[in-house]
C-alpha cells in the first residue's frame, strides 16, 4: 500500500486536501480533510438572535444568500412569524439568482477547465475544449461572466448587493419592488435567458426542462451540437464519466423555494428508487474524526464546537453529519430526484450518482429555475406588503431553519437563552458530502466515491473530476 496527500485542490470554494491510500493501482481508502477552521458557531454565541442575519452570510461568499435564507427561516420559526407572499417571492428570486450563478460558475470556471488540460490533448475534442474552456482564457468564459453580471443586477436591485445582504428578514424582505423596477428586472432576466439559450443550451429552456430520458438527452445532442451542455455530454461519453464517482446513492434535500402555494423543491430522502420523508430528528453530528471535542453522534441542538487541534483521531475540521446513522449525498441531483424529474431518476437508476448525473442535474436545474423566476416576478402584487414586523421577543427558545444552497441541504439549529444566542449549529451541504469518517468508521460520501478509482498517478484528473462533481464549498463545510 502507498499513501499520497493531495492538495491544495483549487477551483473548489475554500480549502481541501485529500489523503489517498492505494493498493493494486486502485484507491483503497480516501480521507478528506477540511484544513481551515474559523468558528462561526462560536462567533454567534451571546449575540442577539437577529444579529445572526449579519454574521451567517459571511460564513460563505458563494452560498451567502443561502446562509441568510436558512437563518431567516430559523428566525421566522423562533419569532413565530411568516413572510407575506411578496416577501416569499422576492426571497425566492434572490435565492434563485445565487443558485443559478453558482451553477454557472461551477460549470464554466471550476469544472470544465480540467478537460482543457494537456492530459487530454490526444482526445479528438481537446482542441475545441481548449479554445472554449481553458481556465480564465477560454472563449466561453467572458460571455458567461457578462451574462452572470447582468443576472447579478437582481442582487443590486433587490438585495442591495451580493454577497452578504441583510435584506432577508424573518418577516420578509426589506425591499419593496415598484412597477418600473419590475420592468428592469424582467429585462435583465430576458437577457440572461437569451444567453442561456444561445450559449449554454442551444435550445429554449423549456426544451431542456422537457428532456425526460437518456434517449431524449442523446437526441438533444444532435439538436444542439454546438452548445456548451452538448460539449460536456460529448466529453462525458468519451471519458465514460458515468462510471466515475458513485457514492452511497442515498440522497437528501430540504424544502426550498417556498411560495404561497407550496414549495417548488421538496424535502426528502431518496433511496433505492423511492422517496421517503426527511426525518429531522434522525440528523446527528459525529465528531470522531474531527479536530473537535466530542465523539459519537449527538443532535445539533446538543452539540458544541470546541476545537482540539491535536486530537489524535482527527483529520478534518469538518464534522460528520449522519441521518439515521448513515451518510448521505446532497446537491442539485438530490433536489431533482425529489422533484420527480424522470431524466435524473433514469440516470441514477442506471449508474447511481456520478460525475455525469451530478453535472446534468445542475445544468438542467438552471433551465428549470429561470422560468420559475419569471413566474415569481409576475406573481408580485406590487401594492401589497413585502414584510411583516418582527416581534420584539422570540416566541420560542429554539428553532431549525432549513433550505437548499446550490450545493445541497443547509440547516441552522439555533437556541436562545435570556434573549441571546446560546447555541448555533450549522450543517452545510459539503459538511454532508465531504464529511470525514464517523465513530463507526463509516466514510463520508466523497470518501466513498473515491474508493476503487483506478489511478496509477494520484494526480490523475479523474480524481479531480470526482471531487469537483460535488461542487464542494469548503468554507461552508467547517464554517
Amino acid at each position, binding site marked *: 500500500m502507498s499513501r499520497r496527500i493531495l492538495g491544495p485542490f483549487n477551483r473548489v470554494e475554500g480549502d481541501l486536501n485529500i489523503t489517498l491510500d492505494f493498493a493494486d493501482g486502485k484507491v483503497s481508502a480516501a480521507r478528506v480533510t477540511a484544513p481551515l477552521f474559523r468558528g462561526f458557531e462560536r462567533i454567534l454565541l451571546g449575540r442577539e438572535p*437577529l444579529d445572526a442575519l449579519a454574521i451567517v452570510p459571511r460564513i460563505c461568499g458563494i452560498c451567502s444568500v443561502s446562509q441568510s435564507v436558512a437563518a431567516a427561516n430559523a428566525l421566522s420559526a423562533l419569532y413565530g412569524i411568516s413572510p407575506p407572499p411578496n416577501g416569499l417571492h422576492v426571497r425566492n428570486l434572490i435565492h434563485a439568482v445565487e443558485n443559478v450563478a453558482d451553477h454557472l460558475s461551477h460549470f464554466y470556471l471550476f469544472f470544465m477547465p480540467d478537460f482543457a488540460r494537456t492530459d487530454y490533448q490526444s482526445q479528438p475534442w481537446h482542441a475545441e475544449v481548449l479554445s472554449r474552456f481553458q481556465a480564465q482564457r477560454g472563449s466561453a468564459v467572458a460571455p458567461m461572466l457578462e451574462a452572470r*453580471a447582468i443576472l447579478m443586477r437582481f442582487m443590486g436591485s433587490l438585495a442591495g448587493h*451580493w454577497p452578504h445582504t441583510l435584506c432577508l428578514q424573518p418577516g420578509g424582505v426589506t425591499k419593496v419592488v415598484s412597477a418600473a423596477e419590475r420592468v428592469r428586472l424582467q429585462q435583465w432576466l430576458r437577457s440572461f435567458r437569451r444567453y442561456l439559450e444561445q450559449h449554454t443550451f442551444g435550445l429554449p429552456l423549456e426544451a431542456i426542462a422537457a428532456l425526460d430520458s437518456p434517449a431524449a438527452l442523446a437526441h438533444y445532442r444532435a439538436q444542439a451540437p454546438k452548445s456548451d451542455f452538448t460539449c460536456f455530454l460529448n466529453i462525458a461519453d468519451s471519458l465514460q464519466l458515468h462510471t466515475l464517482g458513485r457514492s452511497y446513492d442515498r440522497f437528501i434535500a430540504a424544502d426550498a423555494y417556498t411560495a404561497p402555494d407550496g414549495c417548488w423543491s421538496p424535502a426528502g430522502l431518496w433511496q433505492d428508487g423511492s422517496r421517503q420523508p426527511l426525518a429531522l430528528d434522525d440528523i446527528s453530528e459525529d465528531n470522531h474524526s474531527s479536530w473537535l471535542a466530542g465523539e459519537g453522534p449527538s443532535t445539533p441542538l446538543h452539540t458544541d464546537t470546541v476545537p482540539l487541534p491535536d486530537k489524535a483521531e482527527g483529520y478534518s475540521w469538518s464534522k460528520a453529519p449522519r441521518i439515521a446513522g448513515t451518510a448521505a449525498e446532497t446537491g442539485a441531483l438530490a433536489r431533482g430526484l425529489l422533484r420527480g424529474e424522470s431524466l435524473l431518476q433514469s440516470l441514477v437508476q442506471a449508474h447511481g450518482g456520478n460525475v455525469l448525473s451530478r453535472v446534468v442535474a445542475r445544468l438542467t436545474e438552471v433551465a428549470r429555475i429561470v422560468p420559475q423566476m419569471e413566474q415569481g416576478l409576475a406573481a408580485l402584487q406590487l401594492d401589497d406588503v413585502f414584510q411583516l414586523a418582527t416581534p420584539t421577543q422570540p416566541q420560542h427558545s429554539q428553532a431549525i431553519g432549513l433550505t437548499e444552497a446550490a450545493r445541497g441541504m443547509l440547516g441552522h439549529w439555533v437556541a436562545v437563552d435570556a434573549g441571546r444566542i446560546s447555541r448555533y449549529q450549522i450543517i452545510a451541504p459539503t459538511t454532508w458530502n465531504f464529511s470525514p469518517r464517523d465513530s463507526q468508521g463509516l466514510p463520508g460520501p466523497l470518501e466513498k466515491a473515491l474508493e476503487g478509482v483506478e489511478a496509477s498517478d494520484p494526480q490523475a484528473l479523474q480524481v479531480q473530476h470526482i471531487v469537483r462533481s460535488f461542487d464542494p464549498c469548503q468554507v461552508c463545510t467547517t464554517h
Partner: protein
Amino acid sequence: MASKNKRLLWLQSGGCGGCTLSLLNAESPSLFTTLADIGIELIWHPSFAEQSLDEAMHLLQALADGREPLDMLCLEGSVMTGAAGRFHLLPDGQSMSTLIEQLARRARQVIAVGTCAAYGGISAAGDNLTGATGLNHSGNHPGGLLGGDFHAAGGLPVVNISGCPTHPGWVLETLALLASDSLKASDLDPLGRPRFYADKLVHHGCDKNEFYEFKASATAPGQMGCLMEHVGCKGTQAHADCNSRGWNGEGSCLTGGYPCINCTAPDFADPGHGFFSTPQVAGFPVGLPTDMPKAWFVALATLSKSATPARVRQNATRDRLTVPPSLPKKNKA
C-alpha cells in the same frame, strides 16, 4: 508584451471567498479581460487557476523561495495564527500563516483584499480562539502577521482594500494603480485604505439624505426613513463610496432597505450592540458623525425635527413613498 505584465498571486485563508465572488461581478468588461487590460497576469488564484495539487504547491514554494519573481500578493481572508497555525494547514503540514509571511516578504506589493485580510475582520470576532489577524493590522492597531512597520519590497505598506465584501471596482482600480506604480503611500488613509474610496462616507449620496436632514427616522429595516437614529445605520461614520458607486448595477445596503454596518472598519463585527439597533444616550444616538461637535448635532437635530415637512415625516415609517413631493405653487398673476 507578456514579460511586462505584473505577476499577481492571490491566496485565500481565514475568510469566506466573498471578495473573490464579488470581483466576479465586475461588468464591462468582466474580470479576466480587465486584468489583461491593466497589465496583470494572474499567476495563481485558488478559484480560477488551471494548476492544482502538486503543480500548485511547487509554484507556491518557488515563489516563496524567490526562485520565481512575484510582483503582487493579494491575500483574501484573515491570517490564522492560533495554535501554531493549526487552524489552517497546507497539505505538507506547513501552516498557511508561514507561507503567507514568506510570500509577503518577497512580493513587491502586498494587498489585503477585504476586512479579514486587512484587520482580522469577522473571523477575528468574538473570542477569536483561532488567533485570526490581518496582515499588518490587528483590529484597529498596527501589528498583525507582518508587524505594524512592515513595508513591502516596493516601498508601500500593506494596501488594505477593506470591505465585507469588497466592491469589484475598489479592487480592480487599486490593482490598476499598483500595476502602473501610481499608488503612493499618501494615497492611503491611516488604516492603509485607498483614499479614492475610503475618503468618502457611505452617507454621501445616500438615497435617504432628505430623511437624514430632517431626522425623519425609520423604526425598522425596510422603512423609507433614515436608519441612523433607531436601526443601527453607521453610514455617517463609514468610510466607503457605496452610495456614489453602485453595487451589482444600482444597489447599496441603503437602497436595499437595511442599515450600513460599517464593514470597511476593522472592528465592525463586534459593534457592542445589535446590528439593527442604535444605542442612545438621552434620546440621541451614541455614534454621531465623527467630525461633528455633539452639541451642534443635538441643536440641529432638534431644530430640523421641528421643521420636518409632513410629507417626509409620514414617508419615513412607510415601506414606500406614500406622500409625493408637491408641485411648485403657480405664480400668482
